[in-house]
């Protein structure tokens, strides 16, 4: 996979892109505004000229008006040396053309159709002109209407616009580069909390899993991320702690039986014995080793379960039928112990048959083991909205409240006095049960009091695929 561009690069590029777009847009708007301003300015100038001409042409001036008119015409040309005039009749006879510069007669005629004055610009003799065209109806009856055009040279405008464009052409790239640098600097500064997080994260090692990222001293946008990372660290720390507990539990559990086996074997080997003696020792070793290998597979099962077990396949299961099958299994044992087994209620859950059976089997064997002789083990299944509750209870000595949650710990064996026989397991049964129930999105808890101990399992009625 291609490595994505760095955030700083992305932000810088974005900054450059945005700032150049803004600059170019602004330049364009300014350009248009200046251009419009020039047109308005020229129009104003030309309007006054055309008005003078209109006055001159619409009716013959009285004698006493002549000096004033003369003066205004003089002023007109004095104030605007580039001013050009063009007058023609509607029929196309040129009455006046102040310059040899070609006026675009056709376009002027076309524009003169309207009543209002129109602005027009054209190119002639390497100069640009802007003119105002107006149609005048003289008051004398026998004279045709006239088309009057006043024009000025607008080369100075063009030169200005040219200079303006050139300036922008240089300024915009420079400004873009500058804003890019600024953006780069801002991005680096803005992203500095990330480096802080990186430094803190680098400090988290196996031996210092308790280190956390600073959630308070990072910007708001990053608190979510750091929080999630911290939660991940919490989970990691928890898993790591479990793993190391697992190893030490295992070592501890293995040490005693292994050393017993070793001692026993060495003692037997120390001198020659009868075949019967050897047989006896080997048989006892086999029993012990069998137990050990069961502990190992149970531990591995638990380790897998605690790391999130995936249930291979699920099906609809009638809990009451599963309990009936298990009762059949435990029937003989219960009878020997004088314990009666009863169950009531029915419900359907979705789950893996082998796993649920194993969980329930552990609960039943636990109940049988701790039941008082001649006592009673009962299973109650209740289907409450959305949840199936299964209770396994036995009569027997109560368990102190503070010990109840610890019942599900690995290798936890309660007070040996409460157990009727010494066939007690290795203390993994309830831990395995809990793991199996959890794999089915269920919960399990223990209650005890008044001579009755109760394990309550709650399972979703039709559990979706148990969380992997």
């Amino acid at each position, binding site marked *: 996979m291609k490595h994505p561009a760095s955030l700083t690069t992305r932000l810088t590029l974005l900054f450059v892109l945005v700032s150049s777009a803004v600059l170019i847009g602004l330049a364009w708007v300014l350009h248009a505004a200046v251009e419009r301003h020039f047109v308005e300015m020229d129009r104003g100038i030309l309007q006054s000229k055309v008005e003078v001409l209109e006055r001159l042409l619409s009716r013959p001036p009285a004698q006493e008006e002549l000096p004033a008119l003369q003066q205004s015409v003089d002023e007109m040309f004095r104030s605007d040396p580039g001013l050009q005039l063009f007058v023609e009749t509607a029929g196309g006879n040129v009455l006046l053309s102040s310059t040899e510069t070609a006026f675009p007669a056709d376009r002027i005629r076309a524009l003169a159709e309207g009543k209002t004055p129109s602005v027009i610009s054209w190119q002639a003799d390497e100069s640009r002109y802007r003119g105002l065209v107006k149609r005048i109806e003289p008051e004398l009856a026998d004279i045709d209407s006239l088309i009057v055009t006043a024009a000025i040279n607008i080369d100075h405008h063009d030169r200005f616009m040219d200079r303006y464009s050139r300036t922008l052409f240089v300024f915009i790239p420079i400004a873009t580069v500058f804003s890019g640098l600024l953006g780069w600097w801002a991005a680096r500064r803005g992203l500095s909390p990330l480096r802080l997080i990186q430094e803190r994260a680098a400090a988290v090692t196996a031996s210092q899993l308790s280190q956390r990222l600073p959630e308070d001293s990072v910007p708001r946008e990053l608190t979510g991320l750091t929080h999630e990372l911290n939660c991940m660290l919490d989970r990691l720390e928890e898993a790591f702690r479990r793993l190391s507990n697992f190893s030490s539990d295992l070592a501890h559990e293995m040490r005693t039986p292994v050393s017993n086996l070793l001692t026993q074997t060495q003692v037997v080997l120390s001198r020659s014995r009868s075949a019967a003696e050897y047989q006896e020792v080997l048989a006892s070793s086999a029993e012990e080793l069998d137990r050990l290998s069961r502990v190992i*597979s149970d531990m591995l099962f638990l380790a897998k379960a605690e790391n999130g077990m995936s249930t291979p396949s699920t099906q609809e299961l009638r809990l009451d039928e599963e309990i009936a099958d298990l009762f059949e299994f435990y029937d003989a*044992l219960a009878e020997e112990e004088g314990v009666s087994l009863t169950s009531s209620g029915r419900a359907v859950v979705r789950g893996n048959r082998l796993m649920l059976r194993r969980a329930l089997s552990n609960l039943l064997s636990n109940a049988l083991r701790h039941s008082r002789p001649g006592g009673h083990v009962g299973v109650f299944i209740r289907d409450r909205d959305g949840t199936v509750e299964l209770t396994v209870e036995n009569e027997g000595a109560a368990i102190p409240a503070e010990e109840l949650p610890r019942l599900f710990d690995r290798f936890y064996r309660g007070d040996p006095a409460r157990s009727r026989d010494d066939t007690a*397991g290795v203390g993994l049964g309830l831990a395995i049960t809990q793991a199996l129930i959890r794999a089915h999105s269920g919960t399990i808890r223990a209650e005890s009091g008044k001579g009755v101990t109760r394990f309550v399992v709650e399972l979703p009625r039709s559990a979706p695929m148990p969380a992997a």
Partner: protein
Amino acid sequence: MKVLIVEDESKTGQYLQQGLTEAGYTVDLSRDGVEGLHLALTEPYDLMLLDVMLPGMDGWQILETLRRGGRDMPILLLTAKDRVEDRVRGLDLGADDYLIKPFAFSELLARVRTLLRRGRGEPEPTTLQVADLELDLLGHRATRAGQRIDLTAKEFALLELFMRRKGEVLPRSLIASQVWDMNFDSDTNVVEVAVRRLRRKVDEPFDTRLIRTIRGMGYVMEAEPA
């Protein structure tokens, strides 16, 4: 019956060979994959025990090559990997059974016998007999020395298992799985209790004992105790 063991761990291989030889099989042991495959392709074997992790060529490859080469003897995979995917993969590639280390030798022997029996395709018997004990499978009746024995359904199933596999040591886990469909290790002595109760009905009223306990391994039904 010829059995081939392909197992690189020398102690395991040696004990398996000894155990199976003493159980009456002719056993060849190979310690690496390439040699094992060669043997399996050239010699006729009735059964193969195949370790998955092997030097040279792993068990998966051997299994695949054998099945593609048309070898159809039962193959029992031995592995330390206990993952569902591995199990499925092994069975997909044509393995007949799958045993996870560490396993009890009695369990292995029981499975080997099952596989070999399956291959033989014997007709289903309707009655079973061990010494003077007789089991009528159709009529669901057990008699010993002409005397009718009353059994519960599960006791009958347990006795049937013992009689079908007479002479074989049956580990407790196998009994729990075959009779009660409890396919996991239980830390209770349910099987002991059940066997004890069965003995009370089948053995105790009579002169000779048919069900023997083999300490550390399981139970066996034999006509004449050795």
